[in-house]
């Protein structure tokens, strides 16, 4: 215990020293904040009450929003497939023999780790290099990165399912995959769905950012309007994104409510 505490103090001192040293690299004469930026910031905030609502721009914005939703839905579909298969294997729930289970779990966990370790934007760059700029690139990048995260969470939930109902199924003669279908999966399904819905919300935001790597959608429109310093348009797009997230949040709440009552 004292060993842990003293090594923690050493770490604290090291981190403080690193922070102090980093201050020497700041050029204090220029000023830390960009003072010229203040009027631009005020102008941006003022535009919040005057979003651009012309039919032509609204049409473009809604089309971009729809494209982003489509990326997110397609990406989540790929992610759910990867997550369901690898997550089930990584939970070790299906193998009876210890050696088979060990191989399955380690293999699936390692694959999930690889998928998850790389951020979706980096996956997007990799897929652009391989496949070029196409919607498939965005969908795959999102699907692969999120599949890794979903698989890990699915595996943890499946492995932590309550054991008493599973033992009762075994006593009734169920084999491991039958116990999985009639016990493990239904026992944790509400949690899995709940987490997948939360991830869908994240996927929407990620899909919006994907536009910045050259894929169309809400992010591309945002970038365009920002470059033209048309803050009114920027706010229209932001409000649409907020409305979308709120709508998805309401919908996932409804789904959760229905699954638990």
């Amino acid at each position, binding site marked *: 215990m004292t060993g842990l505490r003293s090594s923690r103090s050493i770490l604290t001192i090291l981190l403080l020293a690193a922070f102090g040293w980093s201050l020497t690299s700041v050029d204090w004469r220029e000023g830390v904040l960009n003072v010229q930026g203040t009027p631009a910031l005020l102008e941006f905030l003022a535009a919040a009450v005057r979003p651009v609502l012309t039919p032509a721009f609204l049409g473009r914005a809604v089309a971009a929003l729809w494209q982003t939703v489509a990326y997110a839905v397609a990406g989540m579909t790929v992610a759910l497939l990867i997550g369901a298969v690898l997550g089930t294997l990584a939970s070790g729930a299906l193998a009876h023999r210890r050696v088979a289970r060990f191989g399955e779990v380690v293999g699936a966990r390692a694959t999930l780790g690889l998928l998850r370790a790389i951020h979706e934007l980096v996956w997007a760059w990799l897929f652009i290099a391989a496949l070029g700029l196409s919607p498939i690139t965005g969908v795959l990048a999102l699907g692969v990165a999120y599949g890794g995260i979903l698989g890990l969470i699915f595996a943890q939930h499946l492995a932590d399912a309550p054991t008493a109902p599973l033992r009762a199924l075994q006593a009734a003669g169920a084999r491991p995959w039958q*116990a999985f279908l009639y016990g493990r999966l239904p026992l944790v399904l509400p949690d899995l769905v709940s987490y997948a819905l939360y991830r869908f919300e994240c996927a929407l935001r990620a899909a919006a950012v994907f536009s910045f790597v050259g894929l169309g959608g809400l992010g591309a429109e945002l970038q365009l309007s920002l470059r033209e310093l048309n803050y009114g348009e920027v706010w229209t797009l932001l409000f649409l994104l907020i409305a979308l997230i709120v709508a998805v949040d309401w919908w996932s709440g409804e789904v959760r409510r229905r699954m638990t009552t």
Partner: protein
Amino acid sequence: MIEAVRLEEVCRRYPNGAGLHPVSLSIGVGETVAIVGPSGAGKSTLLSLIAGVFPPDTGRVFLHGRLLADLAPGRELARLVGIVHQQFDLVPQLSVHSNVLAGRLGEWGLARSLLSLVVPQDAALAKRALERVGLLDRWNERTSRLSGGEQQRVALARLLVQNPRIILADEPVASLDPARAEDLLALLTGIAAGEGKTLIASLHSVALARRFFNRIVALRAGLVQFDRPAAEVADDDLAEIYALEDHVR
């Protein structure tokens, strides 16, 4: 007498000193036996050993003349022995009929098990079982919406569908009010009598044991305190058990 269950010098010890040390017992086919005794006397351990949940440290368990350790887990064991617990151990998210039909999993392959979640297989069997426990009208309901007493009946229906020759019940009425406890025991003993099954149940209440079972085995600290026909169990014997329970507490 044809033996349904035979325990030969069966031992199972836990680090805290609880368990069974050692117990020998012979139970005939069609007998209804109540295992009574204070908490920690080894009632649950005894039932788990007969159900094959875990093996004994030493000694042998025979079911219908076959050594339990030689029986394959799964279908073979499920046909011989089935158990209901105090915490009925159902899957609350599944429909009532899926929980009941889980008793058939030992007999089904993958395709049939999967299909049954959508289109119930062997539905007639499950309906008969649910009718028997008085819950046929809840066929399609989500199990979590049922009360504790109703869930206990669903667990019993699952056992009826599994149709083992020996029925074990671990504190089946511990979480039920007195009226429902009597109903459930009447149902359980009625099933055993009607179908010539062997019934072994652990109970806290000796009064219920005397009313519903032919034979009472009292355990104390992992040993058999007495073992005799229910009709011959005297009030003095009961006083002894309760006094011991007070002493343990």
